[in-house]
């Protein structure tokens, strides 16, 4: 255990000290001397953000359910806390036992966004764990990582001992059981890595070498060990009903992003938006049954005391019996005053009925994501939403009494012209016109339309993985074009920082050499890059110059279809051929319909959806 006297002193000085004390309801503190394997789970951002991540609650309860294992949490300390910890030489500790992270067997990171990578280094440093995998010794923990960004593990391959690709519910226990035996047999660090590399879905970077061409593209990836696979296939759970699902969630003392029960209703999404990584890597759709969901909801409400349930998935309105599910939940919890909400909405008139059901009193703002301003461009990205859809939905929504609408768009999408960009204004104005075209007695409140544009970042394992990103200047030009054209007080326009999106693109499609860039940026003081107020663009550029790394090579360059991509050795089940086909179709402005209406041949062998969704 760390010196708690020092901790006490520090806690009096920092903002929101409850971030560092643990002891929340449903947190689990085991006697660390009695368990066989100790796992420290880390979300590399501040507590308030990390605690809102559903995956944390799943893995935490899954591991702690096993008698021999303990899982404790560690987050990135906020900057004030870090300063005090460094001043007092207090090493990073887990919230439950206040034990040094260094004394755990594993430190596991969840990778949710690329701009959290400098925080990973900061956490390792505060924990006194060597930053580079090659420098770690037998007594150091295994530093591992999983989550969506692990589908391109290469940019942090120097820091992570091994990655877990795909859904973790089964594989994490396989790994910990393997380690338990290994520890009892007193094996060496390398022996364990050799063994773990043979588990499906596990990638150990040190057993592979990458050879480059003269033009800096990849020539070959060579396995260095006879037993390691050439291709790492993602792990996927077939049946979500029988899979482990938590019946408890830790309830933070402080307010976090989600102050409610988060109920995962299904995984996967088959709309096939061509920019969306989640839509590809989580395929196919697998639902939990209504019975199972009601059972879980009851237990979660009982164990947390929360008054709200949020139905979570990539696109909740797609749940095949959503209406029935919601009525069942409402019926069950009517007396308890428990509310139900949906976080992600699609433009579908069907949702209006559902919304009426669940938002009985409160008329909070609604969010829609048309993603592109023109129909042409929506076809390119395969966002199956028409202007008519939006108009119909918005009309009904206004009649129901809403007056605050948020519209999400992207700029810099492939093939985008200025006309498409200005389409964002056109669409926002149309929404405004609908409101005022309603008879006065039918509209309520003060209209507020907010159009937000993020800058398109091409992601691995999407049909746009080959596409070059717009330059920072081009993003600014397009954003200004829009900003200058929107002159209505009822319509607000804002856009994300193009500089941040540029770096996101560098890292998202980076190769192993990007590890050095991340390390250098961290050495220059970069951390919490995802927080605009802490993002230090100049430091990143400085680091690139010093290391002679060309960011444009990763972010702006359009790749040839036959180029070996840094993440090609990972098999997400969806085939590369399918992605190429989709890419080509996008350039021809052809759409691909949702595969619930018929299989589109995305390459998943033995897909459980086929036949089921007819």
């Amino acid at each position, binding site marked *: 255990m760390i010196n708690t006297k020092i901790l006490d*002193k520090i806690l009096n*000085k920092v903002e929101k000290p409850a971030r560092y004390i643990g002891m929340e309801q449903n947190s689990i503190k085991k006697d660390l001397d009695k368990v066989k394997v100790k796992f420290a789970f880390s979300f590399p951002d501040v507590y308030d953000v990390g605690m809102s991540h559903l995956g944390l609650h799943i893995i935490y309860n899954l591991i702690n359910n096993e008698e021999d294992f303990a899982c404790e949490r560690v987050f990135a300390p906020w900057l004030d806390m870090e300063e005090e910890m460094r001043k007092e030489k207090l090493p990073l500790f887990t919230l439950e036992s206040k034990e040094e992270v260094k004394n755990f067997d594993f430190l596991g990171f969840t990778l949710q966004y690329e701009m959290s990578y400098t925080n990973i280094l900061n956490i390792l440093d505060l924990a006194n764990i060597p930053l580079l995998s090659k420098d770690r010794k037998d007594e150091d923990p295994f530093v591992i990582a999983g989550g969506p960004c692990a589908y391109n593990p290469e940019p942090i391959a120097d820091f992570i001992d091994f990655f877990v690709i795909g859904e973790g519910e089964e594989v994490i226990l396989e790994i910990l059981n393997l380690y338990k035996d290994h520890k009892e047999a007193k094996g060496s660090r390398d022996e364990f890595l050799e063994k773990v590399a043979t588990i499906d879905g596990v990638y150990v970077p040190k057993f592979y070498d990458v050879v480059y061409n003269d033009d800096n593209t990849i020539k070959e990836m060579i396995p260095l060990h006879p037993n390691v696979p050439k291709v790492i296939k993602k792990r996927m759970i077939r049946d979500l009903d029988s899979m482990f699902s938590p019946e408890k969630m830790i309830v933070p003392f402080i307010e976090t992003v989600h102050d409610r029960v988060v109920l995962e209703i299904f995984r996967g999404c088959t709309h096939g938006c061509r920019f969306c990584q989640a839509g590809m890597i989580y395929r196919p759709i697998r639902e939990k049954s209504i019975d199972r969901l009601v059972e879980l909801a009851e237990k979660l409400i009982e164990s947390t005391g929360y*008054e709200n349930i949020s139905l979570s998935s990539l696109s909740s309105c797609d749940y095949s019996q959503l209406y029935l599910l919601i009525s069942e939940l409402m019926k069950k919890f009517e007396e308890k*005053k428990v509310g139900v909400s949906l976080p992600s909405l699609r433009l579908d008139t069907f949702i209006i009925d559902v919304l009426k059901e669940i938002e009985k*009193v409160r008329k909070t703002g609604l969010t829609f994501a048309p993603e592109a301003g023109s129909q042409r461009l929506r076809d390119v990205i395969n966002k199956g939403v028409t202007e008519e859809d939006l108009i119909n939905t918005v009309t009904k929504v206004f009649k129901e009494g809403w007056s605050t609408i948020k519209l999400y768009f992207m700029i810099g999408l492939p093939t985008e012209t200025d006309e498409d960009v200005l389409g964002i204004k056109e669409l926002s104005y149309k929404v405004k016109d609908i409101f005022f075209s309603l008879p006065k007695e039918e509209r309520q409140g003060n209209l507020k339309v907010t159009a937000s544009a993020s800058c398109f970042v091409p992601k691995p394992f999407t049909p746009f993985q080959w596409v070059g990103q717009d330059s920072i200047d081009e993003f600014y030009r397009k954003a200004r074009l829009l900003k200058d054209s929107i002159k209505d007080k009822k319509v607000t326009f804002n856009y994300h920082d193009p500089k941040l999106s540029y770096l996101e693109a560098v890292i998202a499609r980076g190769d192993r050499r990007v590890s050095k860039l991340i390390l250098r940026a961290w050495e220059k003081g970069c951390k919490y890059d995802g927080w605009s107020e802490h993002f230090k663009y100049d430091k990143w550029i400085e680091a690139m110059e010093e290391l002679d790394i060309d960011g444009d090579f990763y972010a702006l360059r359009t790749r040839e279809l036959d180029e070996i991509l840094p993440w090609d050795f990972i098999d997400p089940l969806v085939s590369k051929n399918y992605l190429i086909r989709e890419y080509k179709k996008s350039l021809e402005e052809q759409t691909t319909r949702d595969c619930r209406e018929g299989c589109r041949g995305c390459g998943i062998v033995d897909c459980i959806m086929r036949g089921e969704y007819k």
Partner: protein
Amino acid sequence: MILRIKFNKKNYLRYISHLDLMRLFQRSFNKANIPIKYSEGFNPHPKFSIGAPLSLGIESNEEYMDIDLEYMAVDEFIERMNGVLPKDIQIISGKYLEREESLNSIIAWGEYEIQFQMNTKRDMEEVNEIVNNWLQKEEITITKVRKKKGQKIEKAINIKPFIKHIIVKGVGDNITINALLRTGSNGNLNPVDLMFALNRDNGLSIDLDEVRIKRIGLYAEKGDQIYKPL
């Protein structure tokens, strides 16, 4: 009916803010199935209030809360609630009020046990002398900074009338004092400010971050009578 309860807040849970404590109780009422009453209106919320909110970082042996609920036996209430509350926040006792009288209107004094270290070791007599001489002063002023419409407004306050007494309890490795201070909506002296002033005026080099404070009692006042709210 209004149930008044006494509860504590110990160890690390002293870092839970007042607002977070309110949310903790709200969830705990749900979990324990307490028939609490809700306010009417657009956005109904459960009816309970805590008297004289504690500042962050201070422990307490006795905090008070009034809860509006359908009658249930006090023992059962305590048992059910303590089953769902964390072990460092527990209800100690409770009683239904005979007549309504809000906690905030009656609480006037708080007693604090304060532990700290000085630059040099001093014996009981010396510490007593320092404290007593200090309290002899005509006025003890501190400056409070308030933010109003983005502007900082400084205000000097004489805290002398807010100090009823200070008793030196012990001088071991730590010095322990008990202080009875004005607490509540009709004047409030935060013990942290008391320590700041004591340190400043007497040059004691106390590390204010290491001062440990615990509220050991809350008192109501009527006329010249001081009594416990329960």
